[in-house]
């Protein structure tokens, strides 16, 4: 697994998590939510969020539609799909088992 890929996977997982916990959000909302969740530990270029969103949209994990938001501006709102929820479950499973085995190795070392 190359490093860009693992960053991508991590980013995907974060976005899916945010959307599943907070419901439909626009890109800026997702970015600030990731900031909040990771307590600013994970700093990414905010812009790189967008290609990731668009890729996930193509994959069918999230859908998007234009909506008018609180400040009367048009914003693109993203929402989790069923496929996305499945993906999130699968990824979470993988991550937790991965981190569990890492923890196990560390304990017994």
């Amino acid at each position, binding site marked *: 697994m190359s490093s860009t890929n693992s960053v991508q996977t991590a980013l995907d997982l974060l976005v899916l998590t945010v959307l599943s916990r907070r419901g439909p959000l*626009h890109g*800026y909302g997702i970015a600030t939510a990731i900031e909040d969740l990771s307590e600013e530990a994970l700093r990414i270029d905010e812009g790189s969020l*967008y*290609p990731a969103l668009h890729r996930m949209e193509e994959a069918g994990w999230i859908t998007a539609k234009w909506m008018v938001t609180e400040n009367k501006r048009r914003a693109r709102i993203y929402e989790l799909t069923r496929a996305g929820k499945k993906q999130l479950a699968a990824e979470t499973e993988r991550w937790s088992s991965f981190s569990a085995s890492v923890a196990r190795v560390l304990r017994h070392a």
Partner: protein
Amino acid sequence: MSWISRIKNGLFPRKLDDQLREEMSDHLARRAAALRDRGLSPEEAKRQASIRFGNVTQLREQSREIRLSAMLESTLQDVRYSWRGILKSPAFAITAILSLALAIGANTAIYSIVDAAMLRPLPVAEPDRLIRLALPRIDEPGSDSSAEDESFSYPLYLQFRTAVGDSARLALFSWAEQIEVQIPNADAPIEKAVRQFVSGESFDILGATPALGRLFSADEDRVPWGHPFAVISYDYWKRRFQSDPGILGRRMQIGGKTYSIIGVARQGFFGVEPGKFVDVWLPAMMYSKAAFTSQTWSWFRIFGRLSPGTTRMQVQARLQPVLRDHQEVLVKGFPTMPPAIRQQFRDADLRVHPGATGASNFRETFARPLWIVLGVSAGILLIACSNVASLLLARATARAAEMAMRISLGAARARLVRQLVTESMLLATLAGALGWIMARLAAPVLVGLLSRGKTDPVRFALSMDTRVLLFSAAVSTLAAVMFGLLPAWQASGAQPIEQLRDVRAGLAGKLRLGRFFVGIQVAFAFSLVVAGASFLFSLRNLFAVDTGFDPRNVAVITLSSSGLSDMTQKEQLNLLLDQLQTRIEALPEIQGAATAQSMLFDGTHWSVQVILPGRPPSEREESLYSVSPRYFSTMRIPLLAGRDFEQRDRSESSQPRPIIVNQAFARRYFGDQNPLGRVFQTPYDGMHLMSMRVIGVVANSTLSSLRNGPQPIVFTVVRGTNLFTLYVRSHLALGSVVRMVDREAQAIGFGTRIREVTTLETLIGSTLLREKLLAEIGGFFAFLGLLLAAIGLFGLLNYSVKRRTREIGIRAALGARPRALVVLVFREIFGTVGAGLMAGLVGAIALLTGIRSLLFGIALVDPLVVSTAAAVFLAAAGLAGGLPATRAATIDPTVALRHE
């Protein structure tokens, strides 16, 4: 992303770019605002936001790439993959594409005719503002008909024009008729052309323009017989005159008058009657002079163009009082008119219809059959779709493992559905293209069938234009969705674990669905077979109707004697009729000859009201047919009482007029009493009465329609007419008879010559054209439906035998006899076919209820029809199931048990 937005993005990449730009700048703005809230200056906030975001252009480019390439790639991939899949199983592909193409082709061909005849607006300017006038048809009491009368008289037309004022402009169009013309003068050979009389402003009101010269104007509406000018159609100009640019001023003879051509109408303008192409337009003023003053001589339709802002209702309101006054005057002219009919005249409401699609006799006759046929071909499409759906299901089994593999490798269900739907779309597109080609070839043939046996053929502007193409494409897409979606959904729902463990596990459901599709096919196909059988049997019944005469070996020849006037030279004409008849009777090999005033079955005979002494005038009018002496013996209609006509009956002085009636007439008016010598009166020219005395009674015979059973007929002796029909009974070939008659006609002089030649059997056949056509089309569709259903049954059984090979092998190994195995196979579809047949029967009853009036001598649930249809259907099902059943019966247990 949905396909639609995918395609949109592909077609309008700029829009995608705008969206990306907007989304990202929205983010920057929000971030900057947040930073400002923390106390940064606006400029600093903007700068920070931009730094945190990264390279906007590059990111946008990246996103754009993702969107477009995903779209292109996955679509291309789908298509490539589908194409490979189709190539991999050519038998499946050919069956699917052919059956779909047949169905799509049938739908498109029929739609193109429906479109040309009924839906497409006339090729004129602003057809939506055109109107067409009509009256309810005056019916004999008791008959229930929604038919309309579109014919009007000239005096009424003039009153309408005055009353309508500035709310609309009205124009008259006579019926387009085939007539004889000679170009340029009376010495030239006789040709046929389609002629229509129009009022001066007709062209202007329709918005038709000339290609050459000028069209008529209001100037042509002034002097009866004062405007000997003709406008010809572009088509006629091209066909007859080879587009001669010097056509203007050329002369032609039409109906004995000389006209000079003043213009050619623009290309594509064919008049107001879809189904007919007018060759020559003449000014209405050139019609018979007496028609301009007669209240009862109705000879044209009225069209009009609404002025901007006026509605049809407003026009109706202006014209209705005029009509009411006119009807009041009209009924006063007929004192013996039965009260019920009188009331209908008084109550008649003028109908102002939209005129955009013109008016058409063809439409009246064929509208219902065409819609029915279109509905039936939609049924064929459904059969084909469920056929392909069940084929796809069977194929899905073969691909179950592949699907399971792809799902376990992480393909999303939606992606698989899309893949499979692409495959369906590809199939439908290929089938649609093929079907369109079939339709192009079939539509003109169909139109040819419609006008078969007519001297005046039906013609349509059958352009396969965008409308038809769109229809075809829509039908194909609909088909793809219908046959593709359900199997695709089911195939993509494969459970990887089960599938990989055992291919047979998830199949029960698929088979159920397959049965369902086959059941649908059986139902539709069976109702088509029942309908087809009904048409065939009703045609047979019509042919079996006793006409009352012997139609074999009778030549029917129409002659004219243009050298004698039927107004002033009646005596000479009487003599001529007698001479011709006796000369032909004297020829060798001739069994009989007689003349009559018009041709049987051509629907144009007179009718008389019957006023018996001491009784009220009859409510209905009876048919009147004028024949020469020895007509009955020539036609072999038995004379039951009294005597035949003789020469002396012709004389004007024989009063009351001697008549011969048929049995139906005698029974209706004289009951059991002896009709011979009885006298009744009949009104003529409105106010006058004429007496008639019965001198003979003949057996019943048919005059116009085979459908209505024996109708009362009054026969009178034919008198001085220069256009008449000659019946010649002879075993000689028609050609020899015609040559002999031609020789005698020339010998007799006075310009006597043959106009039309046919046989009595052909005439009877020509009254059944519609029925023949329906029987042919119905038979064709029944066959198509049967074929498709048989393919469906075969597919299902074949698949089921394949699936149960191992089970059948075990049974065979355990000693099951071949017959038991065949039963085993057929049992699989027994319930399906049974249920399908029942549903089909219900469907057939519904269908037959709708087409009842087109059938003859067929009960709604006719045992003969239903049992024939069922026998045919079961035979086809047996054939379709035979092959898989044979295979099951001959399965080798050892091979079968190793089969995996």
